[in-house]
C-alpha cells in the first residue's frame, strides 16, 4: 500500500456503490483485458483498493469494504472465446452473463451444471468468485467441479493463467479451483474455461408435502440409498414452499421435500415410479417438461431471496439436517435445505432486532461448529450495521493462516476487495 497517499471515502453520489453503503471513487468498465490490466496497475500505484464487479447481484455479500477504492466492472469483457461443443468445453470472458452463456450453450443442446439465480444479471466471473450453487449441486457437482481453466489479473496489473482448455490436466497448481470462491480477493477473473454437458432428455421435480419433520429424517436416510438417483434433494419449510410453489400449482405443506431427477426419459419415468414405491405414497406432485423447468427456476431464485433482514447458509453433515432444522422456529426462518449436501439456507422472516439475530446466529454456529463436525455458518446478507457483530464468515478455520499466506503471495499489498473476506484478507 502506498503509505503517503491515504485517500478517504467519497461523498455521494461518487461513482456508485461498492456494497454495504460504501461508495466508489471511480468506476471503470474496461473494454479489453489490456485496458483492465492498465486500470488495475494505475489505481494500485495510487494506493487505491480494487473492487471487481460483475452484475452486482452479490454486491453486499461479504464483509464491509475496508478502504477507499475503485470499482472495476467486467461486463464489457463478455465474449465467447472458444466453444468447441463436441469437446464439451467452453472458454468465455468473465463478464458474460449466465443468461447469455445459457443461450449460447442451448444452441448446441448443452448447459453449464450450476444453478444460478438472477441469471440475466449475474456474470460468470461473479458466480465463480462467490462459489454460487443451488439445488442440483447434489447430483451435478459444485462450481469447482466445472472449471478447468482461469485467467485473472493480479494487483501488478498482469494477467495470469492456470489450468487449461482440456478436461484433464494436472500441469501446475490448480489455480482455477483456488480462484473459485475467492471472493475477488486474489485478482480479477477475466476468463475461464468450463466443462459443459448435454441437456438431459428429461427432467422431473417431485413435490412431496409432509405434515411434520418427524418422519422426514427416516425418509432422507432411506433416500440416501434409494433405487433412484436424485440430482436434488431439497427440504422446504412452509413459507419457502409457498413462495417457490406460487406459480407451480403444487399443494402446500408444513414441510415439502423436493426430489429432482434428470436423465433420459425412460430412466426418469422409472425413477418416478420407484420413488412412489419407496415413499409409499401415491399423492406425489410431479412436475415434468416445462413445469419442471419452472420448478428448477423457483428453487434457484429462492436461494437469493430477500425476505427479512438476514439470510445465512449453514453447512453441516447431511445426517444433521433434520435435527438442525427441528431446532429452528419455522415462523422466524424460511428454510431451503439442500439436504443431500448438508447445506441449509435460512431467510429470516418478519422483524428482527440485532440482539435477537446475534443470539440466533451464535446458536447456529455453536451447533454447526461442534467438535468433530467442522461445519460453518456464513452470513449471506444482513444490514451493514449488523455485520461486525454477527460476523460474516464465522469462527476462524484451521486453514485460514495458510489462506493468508496464499493471499500474501498473490496480492501482497491487499489491493483486492479489502475487508470483504476471511481473517485479515
Amino acid at each position, binding site marked *: 500500500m502506498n503509505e503517503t497517499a491515504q485517500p478517504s471515502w467519497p461523498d455521494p453520489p461518487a461513482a456508485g456503490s461498492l456494497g454495504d453503503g460504501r461508495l466508489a471513487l471511480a468506476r471503470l468498465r474496461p473494454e479489453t483485458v489490456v485496458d483492465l490490466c492498465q486500470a488495475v496497475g494505475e489505481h494500485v500505484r495510487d494506493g487505491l483498493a480494487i473492487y471487481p464487479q460483475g452484475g452486482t447481484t452479490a454486491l453486499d455479500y461479504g464483509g464491509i469494504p475496508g478502504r477507499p477504492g475503485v470499482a472495476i466492472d467486467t461486463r464489457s469483457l463478455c465474449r465467447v472465446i472458444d466453444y468447441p461443443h463436441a469437446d464439451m468445453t467452453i472458454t468465455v470472458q468473465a463478464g458474460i452473463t449466465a443468461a447469455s452463456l445459457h443461450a449460447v450453450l442451448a444452441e448446441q443442446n448443452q448447459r453449464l451444471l450450476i444453478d444460478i439465480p438472477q441469471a440475466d444479471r449475474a456474470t460468470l466471473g461473479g458466480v465463480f468468485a462467490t462459489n454460487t450453487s443451488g439445488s442440483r449441486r447434489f447430483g451435478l457437482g459444485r462450481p469447482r467441479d466445472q472449471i478447468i481453466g482461469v485467467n485473472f489479473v493480479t494487483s501488478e496489473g498482469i494477467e495470469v493463467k492456470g489450468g487449461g482448455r482440456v478436461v484433464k490436466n*494436472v500441469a501446475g497448481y490448480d489455480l482455477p479451483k483456488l480462484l473459485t470462491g475467492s471472493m475477488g480477493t486474489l485478482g480479477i477473473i477475466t476468463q475461464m474455461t468450463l466443462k459443459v454437458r448435454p*441437456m438431459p432428455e428429461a427432467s422431473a421435480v417431485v413435490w412431496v408435502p409432509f405434515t411434520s419433520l418427524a418422519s422426514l429424517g427416516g425418509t432422507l436416510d432411506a433416500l440416501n440409498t434409494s433405487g433412484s438417483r436424485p440430482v436434488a434433494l431439497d427440504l422446504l419449510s412452509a413459507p419457502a414452499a409457498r413462495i417457490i410453489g406460487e406459480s407451480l400449482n403444487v399443494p402446500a405443506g408444513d414441510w415439502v421435500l423436493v426430489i429432482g431427477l434428470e436423465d433420459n426419459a425412460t430412466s426418469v419415468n422409472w425413477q418416478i415410479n420407484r420413488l412412489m414405491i419407496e415413499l409409499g405414497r401415491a399423492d406425489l406432485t410431479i412436475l415434468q417438461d416445462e413445469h419442471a423447468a419452472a420448478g428448477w427456476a423457483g428453487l434457484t431464485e429462492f436461494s437469493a431471496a430477500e425476505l427479512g433482514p438476514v439470510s445465512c447458509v449453514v453447512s453441516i453433515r447431511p445426517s444433521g439436517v433434520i435435527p438442525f432444522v427441528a431446532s429452528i422456529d419455522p415462523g422466524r426462518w424460511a428454510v431451503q435445505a439442500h439436504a443431500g449436501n448438508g447445506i441449509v439456507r435460512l431467510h429470516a422472516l418478519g422483524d428482527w432486532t440485532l440482539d435477537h439475530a446475534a443470539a440466533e446466529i451464535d446458536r447456529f454456529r455453536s451447533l454447526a461448529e461442534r467438535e468433530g463436525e467442522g461445519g460453518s455458518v*456464513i452470513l449471506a446478507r444482513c444490514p451493514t450495521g449488523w455485520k461486525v457483530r454477527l460476523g460474516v464468515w464465522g469462527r476462524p478455520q484451521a*486453514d485460514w493462516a495458510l489462506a493468508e499466506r496464499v493471499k500474501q503471495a498473490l496480492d501482497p499489498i491487499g489491493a483486492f476487495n479489502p475487508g470483504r473476506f476471511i481473517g485479515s484478507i
Partner: protein
Amino acid sequence: MSATAAVSATTPLASRLLAELTAIVGAGNVLHQRDELLVYECDGYVVNKKVPDVVVFPTCTEHVVELVKLCNRHDVPYVPRGAGTSLSGGTLAVGGGVMICLTRMKRILEINTRDRYAIVEPGVVNVWLTRALAGTGFHYAPDPSSQTACTIGGNTATNSGGPHTLKYGVTVNHVKGVELVLPDASVVTIGGITDDPPGYDLTGLVVGSEGTFGVVTKVIVDLTRDPEAGRTLLAVFDTVEAATETVSGIIAAGIVPAALEMLDNLMIQAVEQAFGFGFPTAAGAILIIEVDGIDAGLDREAQLISEIVQSRGGRVQKSITWRTRKEPEYVAIWKSRKSAFGAVGRLSPTFCTQDGVVPRTLLPHIMRFIEGVARRYDIRIANVFHAGDGNIHPILLFDERDGEQVQRVLHASREILEECIRVGGSVTGEHGIGVEKMALMPRLFAPEDLAAMIAIRNALNPEGRCSPSKLLPSGGHCIERKSPGRRASA
C-alpha cells in the same frame, strides 16, 4: 542429472541423522543400507534415478511431524512417497535426503455412507477402500489403472485420474479435505467433512501439488453411489482412425459414457497374450465403451452407441450387461485394460508411458501424429488410453541399455507432447509434472503464470526442503541442483 546427495553415508551428520531418525520411527522403520535403498532410486519413471540417503516409514502423523522437524534442523531435503507408481518421477529423491515413505500409514479411519465420506491415511491403497466399501452401495470413484498398488496419498499428490473420470471426475473432485504436515512441521486440517468451508479452496490447491506444500497425513474423500447397472461394450475397428472418430461421434451425440477407453493393435496383442480375454488380435483398434446409471435407461444408450460404432465401420463384438462391477466378464475386461501397462513387458524390456491431453475432437489428429513419430524415430509405440477425455498414453518401447535408443525415445516423447501443447492440450492429464516434464512447463505457461505458482509454492514451502525440484522449474535450470534444500526465492 547431477543432484548432490544431502548426506553421504559416512559423515558424522549422516550417523547422527540416522540415530535421530531411528529414535523417531524405530529401527524397523528405517532403511539405510545401499542395497535396501536401491528399490527407492526411482518410481514408475525409470529414466532418472537417484538413491535417497535414507528411507523412513512413519506410522502416524506425529512421526511425520518429528521427521520434518529433524530435516529442518539438519537442513536436509525430504520427499514423501506412496507406492512409487508415479510415472513422471514425482517421488524421485532429487536432492537425496530423507524419503518419507507413507505406506505404513495405512488405516481406513472412518467410513460414513450416510454422510458419504471416508477418512483414510495416505498409505491406504486405492483398491482397499473400494473393497472396504463393497456391499454398502457406495464406492470411491477415482480408479487409476494402478489402483491395486497406488495409494490414496499418492493419488492426492498427483490428482490421479483413471478410466472412469469422463463421467465421475478426477481425484480433486472427490477429495473433501486433507490433514497436512507443513514444511514448518505444524499440522493443519484443510477442508473437512462438510461442504463449502469459508475460505479459499486450499483442498483444490493441495490436490495435485505433488508434495510441494507438505506431507499429507490424512485424506477425507467423498463416496459416490454405485450405479444401478451398466453396459460395457467392446467395439472393434479396422483402424485407429475409425475408433477415434467413433469417440467423437459418441460425445457429439450427447452421451456421457462412464468410460471410453481405446487400445491399438500393438496393445491388443500384448494384452491378449497376457490375459487371453478374447480381444481380436488382428483389429486395428478396440474401444471399451461403458455407460452406467439406471438400468431402465441403458439399453437405449447402448443401442445408440452401437449404431454410432457401426456407422464408423466398427462392430460391437461383445456387450456386457451388469448389475455390479463384480461380475466375472466385467472384471475380466477391466483387468485386461488396467493391466495393459504390465502386459507391455511382453513386448519390450523397458518402456516409457507418456501422458498427454488433446481436445477430444483432435484424437484422430494426434493418433496420426504419433504414428508419424514412431516411423520417424523408428520406435515401436503402443497406445492405450482414456479416449473420452482426450487423454493419450503412448507407450514408447525401448531397451534402456541402448543409450542411442533412449535418446530417440526422449526426443519422440517430447515431440508428441509439444504437439499436444500446439493443439491446445496439456503435457499431463493425470501423471503429473514430476521431474520429467518440468522443462515443458514454460511451454505451457507464460513466465508470469509460473511466477504466480512459484510465489504460492514459496509462501507455503519457503525453505524448499519439501519435495525440492519438482513440478515447477526454478529459473532457467530445471532439475539441476548443486546443493540440496537451498532455493533462491523467485
